[in-house]
């Protein structure tokens, strides 16, 4: 397959969207909450659970407050984009599908060295792990490729195949850009060409300052506790609502888990969580994720058969 080289960040995203749509994935939209990685989207975390087949692809804006560098570092950002694909059960040709997506964005394997290098994935906050690789293109990690084995403490049956592309890094490589802020966001030939920096340099500065110096830690601690309590409260509610319908609120509860996780990341960036406390906080988020997973598999989307009332 010969393809012309993409010319902008957005073109790479659009090509990935088109590719995975053509391969039969539902192209979803980003989740509307602050998350640390595309894995946190319920379309991955929750949908990897239970027996129902699933195929989804989406861009997920992700936030890692500790990685903020005021827009100065060529590679590090506190807000960046991941492209996420989740297919359950993982198809036998998952690797070939993935390589096809690289070809679609202009990585020609007759010129480049693409390799699968062992990298097992584990998310202590999600109680999840899987085996797979980081994919190298000419020595650079361009994606994470994982076969989920466990999520929220549950064995994944069937197993989902997950792909995560670090979009900025991948695009910088494909476009030959050395500093992320210099990367063309839209077509450089457009009437109004915009670079990544035009869009994000100022926000990187603002959020870096906020995350490191200004975020109100007392409030964040309180919000963490609130989210934790709310998650538990939602899950403790009766399965049957006032009209007699059985509705388990796994997703609203999981929203609170996502919130707690992000609040923890902010507190971590503010440097107010000691090494020993860190483990305890991660454990608390994991406990929420596990409860949400427990709840999800009792829902129809989680594969539970409707019960006679």
């Amino acid at each position: 397959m010969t393809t012309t080289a993409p010319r902008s960040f957005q073109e790479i995203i659009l090509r990935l969207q088109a590719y995975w749509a053509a391969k039969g994935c539902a192209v979803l939209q980003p989740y509307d909450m602050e998350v640390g990685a595309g894995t946190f989207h319920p379309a991955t975390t929750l949908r990897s659970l239970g027996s129902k087949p699933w195929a989804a692809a989406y861009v997920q804006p992700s936030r890692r407050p500790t990685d903020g560098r005021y827009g100065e570092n060529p590679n590090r950002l506190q807000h960046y984009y991941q492209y996420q694909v989740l297919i359950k059960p993982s198809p036998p040709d998952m690797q070939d599908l993935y390589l096809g997506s690289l070809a679609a964005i202009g990585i020609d394997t007759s010129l480049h060295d693409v390799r699968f290098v062992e990298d097992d994935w584990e998310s202590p906050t999600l109680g999840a792990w899987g085996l797979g690789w980081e994919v190298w293109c000419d020595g650079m990690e361009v994606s994470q490729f994982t076969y989920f084995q466990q999520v929220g403490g549950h064995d994944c049956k069937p197993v989902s195949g997950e792909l995560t592309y670090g979009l900025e890094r991948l695009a910088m490589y494909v476009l030959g850009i050395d500093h992320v802020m210099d990367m063309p966001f839209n077509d450089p030939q457009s009437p109004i060409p915009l670079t990544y920096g035009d869009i994000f340099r100022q926000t990187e500065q603002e959020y870096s300052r906020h995350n490191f110096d200004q975020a109100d830690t007392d409030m964040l601690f309180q919000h963490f506790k609130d989210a934790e309590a709310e998650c538990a409260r939602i899950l403790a509610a009766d399965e049957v609502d006032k009209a007699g319908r059985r509705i388990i609120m796994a997703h609203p509860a999981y929203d609170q888990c996502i919130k707690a996780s992000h609040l923890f990341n902010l507190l971590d960036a503010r440097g107010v969580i000691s090494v020993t406390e860190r483990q305890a906080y991660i454990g608390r988020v994991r406990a929420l994720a596990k409860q949400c997973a427990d709840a999800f598999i009792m829902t129809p989307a989680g594969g539970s058969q409707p019960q006679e009332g």
Partner: protein
Amino acid sequence: MPDLLIELFSEEIPARMQARAREDLKKLVTDGLVEAGLTYGGAAAFSTPRRLTLAIEGLTAESAAVREERKGPSAAAPEAAIEGFLRSTGLTRDQLELRDDKKGQTFFAVITKPGRKAPAIIAEVLEATIRTFPWPKSMRWGNGSLRWVRPLHSILCILSDEAGAEVVPLTLDGINAGNQTWGHRFLSKGAITVSSFDDYAAKLKRAHVLLDSAEREAHIWADAGNLAFAAGLELVEDKGLLSEVAGLVEWPVVLLGQIGEDFLGLPPEVLQTSMREHQKFFSVKNPRTGRIEGFVTVANTKTADHGATILKGNQKVLSARLSDAKFFWENDLRTVSTVGLEGMAEGLKNVTFHNKLGSQADRIARIEALAREIAPLVGASPDLAAEAARVMKADLQSAMVGEFPELQGIMGGYYARAAGLPEPVALACKAHYQPLGPSDAVPSDPVSVAVALADKIDTLTGFWAIDEKPTGSKDPFALRRAVLGKARLDVENDLRVGINAVVVWAFGGLVRQWNATCNLFVQLEKRQDGFFTLDVTQEYPASLSAKCTDVIVARVTDAERMIAEKKWKIQYLADGKVRDFGIYTKPMSLVSPDLLTFFHDRLKVFLKDQGIRHDVIDACLAMPGNDDLTLLVKRAEALAAFLKTDDGGNLLQGFKRANNILTQAEAKDGVEYSYGADVKFAETGEERALFAALDAADAAIAPAMKAEDFATAMQAMASLRAPTDAFFTAVQVNADSPVVRRNRLNLLSRIRTLCLSVADLTKLDG
């Protein structure tokens, strides 16, 4: 006889697991075939990132028939017994044979198991092998339940001989065994059909797969060396990396690149570590300057542009990585120049070493105090040792070590020199961790030795005090390594730092910190039905009750009341009050002997590896001063060498004989013969000669022992051999005359005393 070829073709197998997997595949399959009655000529296993292959030569085509005969009950036996026999043999009554036996007519079962064809056996063995394969980590995929290291795509399994090849029928979770494989992921298209191992290896090579990892390693090493040489550079050897890289490629293509000018000022260890850990690059140095100036990367594919694009990409990634490293390096140097290394170490207050043993800063404070006390014993300046202790772990807070933990100590040395600290302090940053293993160097600079010892003794004493000793294979704090480290530091530097004394100092350091941070100390006695409170105090007691088995060290909100009431609630520890702290500790009186025993046990293992028998070590451990490891090892080495000589072996026999006679006589007479042998009661020349020999040996052994010159002492002991042998040949110890008998027993006791002054020879075997 046919040959067997098996290939398990999968998605990429982690490089680090391949060598072990090759061995396991070979062993499991060949063991299984042999157990099922087949034999084979030879077997070899291979691996690439995508395949595990086993080739077996000269396999028998079928297993031999097995005839088994079993004797059953007599014909007259109760029906139930006969039924039981039928069940156990799986036969029917008419298949049994009746034969005459000693006890009359008896049932016999003759079971003939026919031989089985190889394919049936292979299918069974291979399926069992795949299902039980001992991968360090395995996974499921898709809808299946089969586990493999990564998804398994195909199984090639053929038996071949001159007549051709046949596929061994086998189906495993939807995978049918066949005679096909696939070549390189990008350089080859379509399936390849193979008919034998030679055909397979040759076709794979044409399909750009080098099957044998040894061949790939050799190819990489030769190409890399040549490329470096042509550029006037020299490859830095790295066997571990070579084997890893060979496990990442099927078709190695070696590329040489240069490190950007900007980064050549970084310490070589930083360049090497960054390139190795992140990029799996080999380092290439300039032989004239010794500087690392280039790298070798190994691609898994050949390209039309001869790797130009690949090399450019790799170079770019390296630059990004090294920019990070350079940023860390410059940042760290800035920190050091503004706040010094001690300033850098400040943050260690917030780093927990162990939740019961405090922060890294607490630990450093203890090590500093201990290093001061040890310093004079090892010829180091106490002030320098203390300074070294304060800064030697500072680099744990540096950005560089945060990124590359394996550079701990090495960066500390660079930063200490940058801060203008004395060279012995800079050396100690790395050396205090040493020796890291049996082959690692042992520090010899006195300051390094002092802090290296202090570090290890503090760790050991601390973990013994909180009763967290290594168990089985679990030793997360590398306490066994610390013990061996202490032993090697002592022996190789000829130090005399007795364990008991330093453990007392180290324990004192713990107590000082507990007193500073805690306000309640509860002495407990562990009894069968639980703990009994002996005393409750505000400070760690200067002397503990003799019955004390545990001390609770705690920080609580209402200590005064508990001290006044002399009562302590165990539940208090568990009620989760955040401000409170409480741990169980062991008293010094239990820590010290237990730790010494641990030292002795490890030392036995260590000396056994050096070829010194365990009974020889026991004979030395039984001597006084056994907490002095140098003395212990010297004595054991001398004794082992002595026992290997003829004189030594024979003297040991003489000693044992003397000791046996004495022990029997002492038991019979109820007295101890230990003194008063007098030459004037000697009746024979042999007796007088032994007296003379003992006098001479005494004169030689006493000063030698004082000088701890065990070899000379044992040499002197050896001179007793001839007179002792002669004595036993010529003289009857149990003489009729009680005076003569007593004198002879006392003479034997001189032999015993003399020998026992060197080592406890009663512990020796043989």
